């Protein structure tokens, strides 16, 4: 993948360098995987936004005339339930479409929470160093020692099962990555001349931290955030699958899989489609994250 980004369009000799966004796009669009990932994410986003209008049925409507109906191309299936129905006659396609809303919200909310807390802790650790640094980083090391899902399970066991608690648990589990990245970037940046110049010209600590140093640490954080969305979706679905995340009848993809488990022997479709939805979404975010990393990494340019 990285090799494709190297095929930069022929540079036109000109006095003004291209706008940073335009330059970024020329690297990014050369990466077919990343563009594919972005396309899929936009599609999932559209599905999520328009779920109430495009879904053929209410996601929680049970219909006892159509238990475990197969998808339309199989014998016994019909186009009114394109991907079949589950054990209590709910339309699987409708549930998947509404599930897309949940998964995207989970992914984005978890990353947003982790990134905000992570940036603050990382800035404090990297800027002030000393005791604050040691305390924060030790705590993060401890969080990283625990296997991620085990830690999330423990947190959910304390807080009680449910979608909100599962999201909080996943946010805590992924927090150390953001703290470490921010801290490393802050340490690398804060000795540079422009920071010293701002300091000499009288900028205060908060201003130095947030408007001088932080914008220059953005690239690695953006990459990590994109990859983090896929981790968050995957972990929240795993918690849902274990019965610790979203509770039935919420159409969350992991919870749907948990419901479908006992029917694996009789109805392949109730198991196959929710998992496929998770895989495709997670894969798309990973492709996008890889593409962003290649496009934003100055070392790979030229």
């Amino acid at each position, binding site marked *: 993948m990285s090799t494709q980004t190297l095929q930069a369009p022929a540079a036109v000799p000109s006095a003004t360098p291209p706008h940073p966004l335009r330059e970024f796009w020329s690297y990014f669009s050369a990466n077919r995987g990343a563009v594919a990932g972005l396309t899929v994410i936009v599609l999932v986003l559209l599905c999520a936004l328009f779920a109430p209008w495009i879904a053929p049925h209410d996601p929680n409507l049970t219909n006892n005339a159509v238990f475990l109906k197969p998808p339309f191309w199989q014998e016994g299936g019909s186009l009114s339930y394109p991907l079949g129905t589950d054990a209590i006659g709910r339309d699987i396609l409708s549930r998947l479409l509404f599930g897309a809303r949940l998964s995207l919200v989970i992914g984005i909310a978890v990353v947003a929470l982790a990134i905000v807390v992570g940036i603050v802790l990382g800035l404090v650790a990297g800027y002030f160093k000393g005791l604050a640094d040691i305390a924060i980083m030790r705590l993060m090391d401890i969080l990283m020692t625990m*296997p991620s899902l085990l830690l999330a399970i423990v947190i959910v066991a304390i807080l009680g099962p449910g979608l909100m608690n599962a999201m909080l648990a996943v946010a805590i589990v992924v927090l150390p990555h953001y703290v470490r990245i921010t801290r490393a970037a802050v340490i690398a940046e804060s000795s540079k001349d422009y920071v010293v110049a701002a300091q000499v010209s009288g900028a205060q600590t908060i201003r130095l931290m947030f408007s001088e140093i932080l914008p220059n640490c953005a690239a690695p954080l953006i990459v990590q955030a994109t990859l983090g969305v896929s981790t968050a979706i995957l972990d929240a679905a795993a918690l849902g699958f*274990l019965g610790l995340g979203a509770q039935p009848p919420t159409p969350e993809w992991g919870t749907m899989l948990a419901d479908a488990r006992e029917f694996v022997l009789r109805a392949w479709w109730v198991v196959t489609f929710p998992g496929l939805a998770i895989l495709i979404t997670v894969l798309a975010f990973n492709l996008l994250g890889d593409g962003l990393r290649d496009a934003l990494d100055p070392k790979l340019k030229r």
Partner: protein
Amino acid sequence: MLRFIFTRLSLVIPTFIGITLLAFFLVRLVPGDPIETMAGERGIDAARHAQLLTEYGLDRPLLVQYGKYIERVVQGDLGKSIVTRENVLTEFGQLFPATIELAICAILIALIVGLPAGIIAAVKRNSIFDHGVMGISLTGYSMPIFWWGLLLILLFSVQLGITPVSGRIAVQYFIEPVTGFLTVDSLLAGDIDAFWSALSHLVLPAIVLGTVPLAVIARMTRSAMLEVLGEDYIRTARAKGMAPIRVVALHALRNALIPIVTVIGLQVGALFTGAILTETIFSWPGVGKWLIEAISRRDYPVLQGGTLLLGVVVMSVNLFVDLLYGLINPRIRHAR
């Protein structure tokens, strides 16, 4: 080297304290009164409640309680399961070999497939094989393994009927535990049928658990090999007329191994995470399934003790990997 070992060892203590704090507060933070939780739905009268509170030391200050807890932990007393009345440490000891057996097989599969795939992908860079390996490994990396397990059951157990759906061994076999690994124990007992039964139960869970490490190892091997293959000494070796396979196997691989070993070490924590899901899907009687069941049964001593023990296991493995890494790479050993 001694200095490196001591620095690394001194990092163990705060981590250990952190894990014990987590396990300790896990039970303290659960909403509701711990005595009433233990008594269950039958309830408990006030006098007995007060007596139990004193008995368990729950009326003492939190710090004293934590001190008592550490004292018990160091003596190996992790409490008794509320459900089975069995010592938590004993139960862990009985179930842990199953998890280890699964984890070892998973990492073996990941290595046997992932290493060569990564090496060939790097050597044949930009070929169809390279793109294929990278595509498949990104898919494996994105795989919700709980779904992957169900799919494999659907294919191999339901459609083809090759492998059993769940458990460790068919019920008719009883193997006296020696090592705790059923595949090894059945061979030690000389029971070939039991061995095949154990192996057929092991294959699918091991593939499922090995999928993510395999993807990570293949990707890491490829990028480490690509980096080394661009070095001057590789060009020199090639210019000398050395056989290409010798260049790759002797010169390049040896130096690419250092980052690969680190990644394998880092996969151990992820492996236990995966084991929790894999064991739940395949009803594999290991510690992961045990912990999940403890949550649904509100068996807090098991959850507390199990969390602590798994945390300590992962911590020890990380320590071991770090020390090993220092041993093979002098640059780490001497870094300040």
